[in-house]
């Protein structure tokens, strides 16, 4: 696990949302946090390099940015890694998890529009020779991915 100091934590706690839209956003963040712009940029770069951050930027609303769908497939545990690799190679897959259930591989397929999404799902279903459980979102009640990091729990597990 990455060791993060107080400044890293303040950056994460303050800017999971609300990154300033101005000419020099990192300077504005630096001013808010009482450090230099170079320090903010260096920290963000290091956090990305350590894979603590997947990126700095926008989280798009799937339902409006394009088409996406949660799908699952039930495969024998012995073949799970192999099937997961096939799914990962499939264009448009952005999340792919093994979960504890008979349906043991869960992935999100994305596409520019519904027609392309369906083509991709059909092609993958044919390649896997397995029916996909297709679970489109019908209604989103809470679709924000940021939540407060429980620093204290992480330090005293």
């Amino acid at each position: 696990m990455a060791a993060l100091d107080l400044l890293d934590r303040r950056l994460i706690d303050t800017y999971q949302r609300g990154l300033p839209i101005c000419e020099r956003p990192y300077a504005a963040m630096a001013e808010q946090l009482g450090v230099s712009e170079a320090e903010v940029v260096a920290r963000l770069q290091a956090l990305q390099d350590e894979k603590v951050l997947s990126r700095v930027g926008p989280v798009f609303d799937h339902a409006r940015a394009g088409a996406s769908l949660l799908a699952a497939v039930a495969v024998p545990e012995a073949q799970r890694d192999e099937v997961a690799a096939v799914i990962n190679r499939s264009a448009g897959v952005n999340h792919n998890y093994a979960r504890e259930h008979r349906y043991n591989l869960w992935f999100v397929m994305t596409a520019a529009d519904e027609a392309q999404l369906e083509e991709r799902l059909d092609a993958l279903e044919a390649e896997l020779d397995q029916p996909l459980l297709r679970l489109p979102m019908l209604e989103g009640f809470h679709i924000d991915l940021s939540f407060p990091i429980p620093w204290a729990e992480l330090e005293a597990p």
Partner: protein
Amino acid sequence: MSLLQSNTVSETHAEHRLRALLESGLPLTARPWQTLAEGCGMRESEVMACVQRWQAEGLIKRMGLVVRHHALGVCANAMVVWDVPDDAVGELGRRLATEPAVTLCYRRPRRLPDWPYNLFCMIHGTRRDRVLAALDEIVERQALQAIPHRVLFSLKAYKQRGGRYTREDDSHDRRTPQPA
């Protein structure tokens, strides 16, 4: 879907290019909007105005640091699925969404007979027992003892990254899967 259609139709080529660039994140340059502007043939001020409009319209839900929770030690990730009577699912979804431990909450179709669950929520935490304790509290607080549910913890993340929705991005949408 009507919103999507109107967005797609009204989006200029430059805006589409901007969206594709933004899906990979904001460059860590002193003037990131200027860097993006150079990549999509817009002016810096136009890029900022466009991003602000996308935020106002809800196409962008939030703008900031996108944390990989696993790297921080927030390793327990449970998808909790519920089999809720159809006439109660909307109301329960809205109630679950107010629970601080719930990070996502969606209604999805059942696929009978294999899949009877129509409400999904995610609970993240540092440890499996803490996630289960948080779920117990939710069941108690929301009086959900009679609603069948299943907890699907993740065992491994084969892939985890932001969505890529723009067509021109398809050629470089490969990334090494991260171990869970």
